[in-house]
């Protein structure tokens, strides 16, 4: 199946298609850190004066939609999770109200022995209740063209 990546990008990349809000809870921050093997008390001890979320905590959040409504499908389901990149911009602390805005950041293909794979980079930008940026999470979703 031929995929017109340039057209897909023109039609779909850049526009915010979902906004969601979350609240950061102390138990979740602590358990996320401890289960990953964190030992630094500013990530594991809610009583620590500098207690905050570990750098990749916001990668746990998903919006109401993974892709924009009517985004074309090239395989069944959303495909598979090929990786995540987290850029940390500020601390996330207990009680923060987190706003996440989702958009398609990039679309590209790679072709190998198993055929053409479509990579969709879903970007979520997180900020707190004061509008201060917390992080950017780029989630690379892969669809196998024709499956």
């Amino acid at each position: 199946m031929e995929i017109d990546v340039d057209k897909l990008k023109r039609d779909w990349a850049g526009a915010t298609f979902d906004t969601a809000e979350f609240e950061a809870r102390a138990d979740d921050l602590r358990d996320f850190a401890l289960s990953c093997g964190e030992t630094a008390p500013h990530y594991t001890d809610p009583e620590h004066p500098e207690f905050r979320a570990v750098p990749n905590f916001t990668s746990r959040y998903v919006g109401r939609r993974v892709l924009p409504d009517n985004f074309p499908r090239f395989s069944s389901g959303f495909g598979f999770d090929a990786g995540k990149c987290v850029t940390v911009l500020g601390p996330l602390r207990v009680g923060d109200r987190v706003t996440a805005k989702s958009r398609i950041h990039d679309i590209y293909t790679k072709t190998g022995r198993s055929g053409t794979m479509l990579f969709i980079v879903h970007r979520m930008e997180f900020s707190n209740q004061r509008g201060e940026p917390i992080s950017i999470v780029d989630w690379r979703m892969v669809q196998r063209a024709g499956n």
Partner: protein
Amino acid sequence: MSGRSYAEVEFGEELPAFQPDVSLANVRRFTGAAGMTFPRFHDHEAARKEGLPGAIVPGIMSQGILTALIHRWSPSARVLRVDTVFRSPILVDSKPLAKGVVTDKNDAERTVEVDLTIQNEAGDSPVVGTATVAF
């Protein structure tokens, strides 16, 4: 907090490897904190019904393990960016090893680049990544 200073970090330095706890009980603790409800992460039988060899460790838990590796090496280090590639699943109840090595130093920014790997018992690297770290 304590840890290494930028000047103390050496190019090619290996971070002390550690064996993360990916037991079913601990992965369940993680999925509870992360709000992940997919049974493939915390139920071996449900995962097998999906064609997997058993329950698998969530990708974002692997990413968290790799940032924990950095903080265990230097508790005051600040991870500015972490990028992980999920090549294949890590099985729950296996014995993986988290490893890292300093691959670059940026004197202007006073940051270092760290290559990150989670190795399985077969010696393969199902999760790899890089991080930019400030001190």
